[in-house]
């Protein structure tokens, strides 16, 4: 049985507002075939299990393995489906290898947000008895969280806008990004109001795309690559469902998930140990909120921390050098893209967005509205 699990390969499609040239299985295969080519591994002989990550309602069919089994090497073999954020697929993949059941697992997340309406899809995530018929979706729920966070911790719209400016500028260096550019804080503030305090540029846009990643036991990893990226720690945690059950400004689930991941990684002081972070900025303010929940700055300090330039590429703690979700990464794929980007950084393969001298990276993903479920992955090379 292995004691360590490594990421041995990563491939991503370009993220785009609409991929009309392929169906989602063909889109997924672009990432899968690339990661097999990069690692020199072949289906079916070299991979003993697969995890696909997507969501029935996004795909518009149940279950979404319908179009995935053949492209992921699942035919008459072990394949599981994960209807949560892709970061949690990494958690399950690592657990499967640590158990000794598998030695090499292919993980792939895909979503084509262009195929349906995000608000209608996400409304189904609200409980059917008390909340759903009020018409909530992830954006209106996030607006309630943003307001509460700004009120309780003194965060301003300008603080959140600086995240957008930074991430969309970072995305110019990322060939996979769906959107990027030079924006100002004023551009973000004056973009159309969607659900104040959230305006159009505060919200990650719809995108189509897929990410594939291969995990291996230590023994297999050493044979596959000379640049394994080790999963040093990993933790997950759920919070309550109902919008009114938690103070939306607080991050208890993330603190617990991060605590578990840091403890497993032997990290006592994440501010000293962590070199870069890829976090789930589905909405601008969330990058600030999650940085605080990850313990990478004090509560209420993430706005000033960002304004100081600390989170820029070249700053003290680069955050989302890839451009993050604000540059356009599909739902479900989001967290797997965070892990993939962190792994590329540690392998020194992040191209123009490369952070120098990074040895420890944190990737964070979340599932459900307002970050109900949290997953934190600590990676090292």
């Amino acid at each position: 049985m292995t004691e360590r699990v490594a990421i041995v390969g990563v491939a991503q499609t370009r993220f785009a507002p609409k991929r009309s040239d392929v169906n989602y299985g063909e889109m997924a295969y672009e990432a899968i075939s690339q990661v097999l080519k990069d690692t020199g591994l072949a289906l079916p002989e070299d991979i003993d299990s697969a995890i696909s990550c997507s969501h029935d309602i996004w795909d518009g069919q149940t279950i979404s393995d319908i179009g995935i089994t053949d492209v992921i090497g699942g035919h008459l073999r072990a394949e599981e489906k994960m209807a949560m954020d892709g970061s949690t697929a990494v958690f399950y993949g690592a657990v499967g290898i640590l158990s000794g059941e598998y030695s090499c697992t292919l993980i792939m997340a895909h979503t084509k947000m262009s195929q349906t309406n995000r608000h209608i899809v996400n409304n189904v995530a609200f409980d059917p008895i008390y909340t759903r018929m009020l018409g909530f979706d992830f954006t209106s729920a996030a607006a309630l969280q943003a307001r509460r966070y700004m009120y309780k911790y003194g965060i301003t719209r300008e603080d959140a806008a600086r995240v957008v400016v930074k991430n969309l500028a970072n995305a110019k260096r990322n060939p996979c990004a769906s959107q990027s550019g030079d924006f100002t804080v004023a551009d973000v503030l004056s973009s159309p109001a969607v659900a104040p305090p959230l305006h159009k540029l505060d919200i990650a846009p719809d995108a189509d795309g897929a990410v594939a990643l291969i995990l291996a036991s230590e023994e297999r990893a050493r044979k596959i690559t000379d640049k394994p990226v080790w999963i040093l720690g990993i933790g997950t945690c759920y919070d309550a469902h109902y919008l009114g059950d938690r103070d939306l400004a607080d991050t208890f689930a993330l603190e617990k998930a991060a605590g578990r991941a840091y403890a497993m990684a032997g990290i006592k002081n994440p501010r000293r140990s962590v070199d870069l972070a890829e976090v789930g900025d589905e909405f601008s303010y969330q990058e600030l909120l999650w940085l605080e929940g990850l313990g990478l700055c004090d509560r209420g300090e993430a706005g000033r921390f960002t304004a100081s330039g600390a989170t820029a590429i070249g700053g003290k703690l680069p955050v989302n050098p890839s451009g993050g979700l604000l540059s356009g990464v599909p739902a479900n794929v989001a967290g797997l893209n965070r892990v993939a980007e962190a792994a590329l950084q540690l392998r020194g393969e992040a191209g123009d967005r490369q952070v120098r001298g990074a040895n420890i990276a944190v990737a964070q993903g979340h599932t459900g509205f307002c970050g109900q479920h949290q997953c934190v992955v600590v990676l090292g090379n």
Partner: protein
Amino acid sequence: MENKTEYKPFEVDQHLTAHGNYWAGKAGSRFFTSLRDKKKLLGSPCKACNKVFWPPRSVCTFCFGELKDMVEIGPLGTVETFTLVTYSEPIQPRTAPFIYAVIRLDGADTGMAHFLDEVEIGKVHIGMRVQPVFAKDRKGNILDIQYFKPL
């Protein structure tokens, strides 16, 4: 990776409709009956944790103890957060723009997310005191509260 296609991309149109009936359960059945028939709002108290929950539930979130009692909460409450939704979707029972708020009902330890109306968005603030407006024709669902309005 995206190749220029040698074919005209073809789209298959699909529309799914599913009608669902959800049993509201032990606590929910009492909540909706009380709301519809008496215009009274109920929550679930956990004596061990000294908490009162809305929505009412049969198991405490914190100690996992079974909750059998119910107590009246509200009807007045306090705004904890709010937003103005500017877009319309078929899932919404109102046409935008409208205001959502999380409202902590008096006597409850958790909030109720619902509509806020009869107020301009610029006048809404966290800490604002509000009261429910009940529907005249109540059907036993959450829209038996039409919305909350300022005191």
